[in-house]
């Protein structure tokens, strides 16, 4: 699940409420069936948290640090050591596990932060801006790792970001908050569903292709650029028709692309409050949103 909001929107505050560290100013919250106000200890035993800030000791090794963190989560000494080795392998730090963290790159430190959130095998992890400070390649790696945590490890993930594109790639549900108020809660598929149009670009003779498509009853809209136009996807056969016509006319097909909405487009305009958020207790201060697996 992705949690989106601008800086200061209340993403981290929401996580802290859900971890049972601060009481909500109004409303109630529960995680995995535990009340955030009264059962913080049980929640924090079953949940992992990767903070946004720098939070690693620099003078000890990743292994030493993770064993300690696993024990702090309640794991017995032997299990803590086993799971530390396992977790470091999964985040790709196995080779470097005995080096002190001070010598790690930013990307490696982020992975140690992720590892400490996973080491006790939580049911749910909160990842607060996990791609912060990473270069594009590092971002991709981190996002892949997060997708793996969710898909292969079977751990529910709540990830926050102010970058919609990242969340679009890895989440199946998007929650948008601003000023502590829920703006929108929707599935990513719904948010980025097919807009029902097909972008076509041909090498030349675009007018003839458009003409033939119109003859077949398709709605064709020429776009500004030469040689490209959009076709409404009224039925699945439309794309076949495009290919057929292009072949008949012997022109080169440069592009045939389904057009998707990007989350950025959806949220670019006025923040919309959908039906579901209207049911939420809305207040000026952060309200808690129930998260279940």
């Amino acid at each position, binding site marked *: 699940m992705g949690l989106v909001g601008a800086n200061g929107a209340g993403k981290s505050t929401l996580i802290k409420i859900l971890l049972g560290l601060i009481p909500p100013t109004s409303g109630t919250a529960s995680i995995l069936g535990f009340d955030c106000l009264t059962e913080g200890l049980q929640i924090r035993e079953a949940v992992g948290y990767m903070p946004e*800030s720098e939070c690693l000791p620099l003078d000890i090794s990743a292994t030493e640090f993770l064993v300690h963190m696993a024990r702090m989560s309640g794991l017995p000494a032997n299990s803590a050591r086993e799971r530390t080795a396992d977790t470091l392998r999964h985040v790709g730090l196995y080779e470097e596990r005995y080096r002190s963290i001070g010598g790690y790159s930013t990307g490696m430190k982020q992975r140690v932060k992720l590892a400490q959130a996973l080491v006790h095998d939580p049911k749910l992890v909160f990842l607060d801006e996990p791609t912060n400070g990473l270069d594009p390649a590092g971002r991709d790696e981190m996002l892949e790792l997060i997708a793996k945590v969710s898909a292969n490890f079977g751990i529910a993930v709540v990830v926050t970001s102010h970058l919609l594109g990242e969340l679009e790639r890895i989440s199946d549900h998007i929650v948008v908050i601003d000023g502590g108020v829920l703006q929108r809660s929707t599935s990513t598929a719904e948010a980025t569903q097919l807009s029902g149009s097909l972008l076509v670009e041909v090498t030349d003779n675009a007018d003839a292709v458009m003409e033939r498509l119109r003859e077949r009853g398709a709605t064709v809209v020429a776009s500004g650029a030469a040689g490209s136009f959009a076709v409404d996807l009224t039925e699945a056969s439309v794309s076949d028709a495009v290919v057929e016509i292009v072949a008949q006319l012997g022109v080169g097909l440069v592009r045939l692309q389904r057009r998707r909405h990007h989350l950025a487009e959806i949220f670019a305009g006025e923040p919309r409050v959908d039906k579901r958020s209207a049911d939420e207790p809305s207040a000026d201060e952060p309200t808690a949103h129930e998260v279940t697996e």
Partner: protein
Amino acid sequence: MTTNSVIHNIGFRHYDGPRLGRGWAFRSLLLETLRGAYGLGRPAKVKIMPWVLVGLITIPALVIVAVVILTKQESLPLSYTSYPIAMYLLVSLFLAGRAPYAVSRDLRDGIMPLYLSRPIKRTDYVYAKFLGLALAVWIYLAAPITVLLIGALLAKFSVGHELLAWLGGMFMAAVLACLVSSIALVLASFTKRRGLGVAAVLATLVLLNGFANILIAVVRMQSSESSGALFAVLDPYLLVDALGAAWLGVVPLNGTVQTDSVLATGVFTVALVVIVAGMLGILLRRFRKVGGV
């Protein structure tokens, strides 16, 4: 394909063993603090200072034992209760290094959010750090005292008498450890910079000792009464010296704190409780807001 091929499962393994909860987490943090104080699980350069200091505080005890055995003395020249007081400078040095290591590092590296996301309460952190450091100091004092005991037994002193005196020494060492640890932790907890913490702890402990000694001496010059002994409350080492004399009836190292007054005993006892409780109160307040929550 052979039938006896093996599938190596390197996928994510879930943990379904016991989760030991808050008590275990508290113990783990306490133990981690204690291990850190002696540089265990840390790089070699962190180990140097504490172990040099362990050597320095134990060597005089070894010399005493050697002299006692070789010259066939009737008793130890320095009692079990006096030894830690006599070594106050080394004890202060040990604290100056260890107290900032216990808390300033966590503050500087921003580790609090990770601890807070574990199944412990905020106050647990303070108590675990305090007890961990106090235990480290107590072990630091116990080592030479026990060397003295072994020497006394080798010299064939009365076993019962020596054991009892040793237990008294261990008890007063524990009192001293709690007192100085609480003070040093408060000083160290107000800076993220370890160097500053080291200087603050050392300067405070040395200055307090000098200041209290001067006041006692001044009062003794003015009158023959022993009321000057009350100034022992200003310095942790003098206070523990005075408490040893008052509680256990042992001869104090510093004769000026000797007093027969029941009132003085009460004052010393109350001072101990007030200082330790007050310091812990300050620590709890200090850490109430740390961790960005």
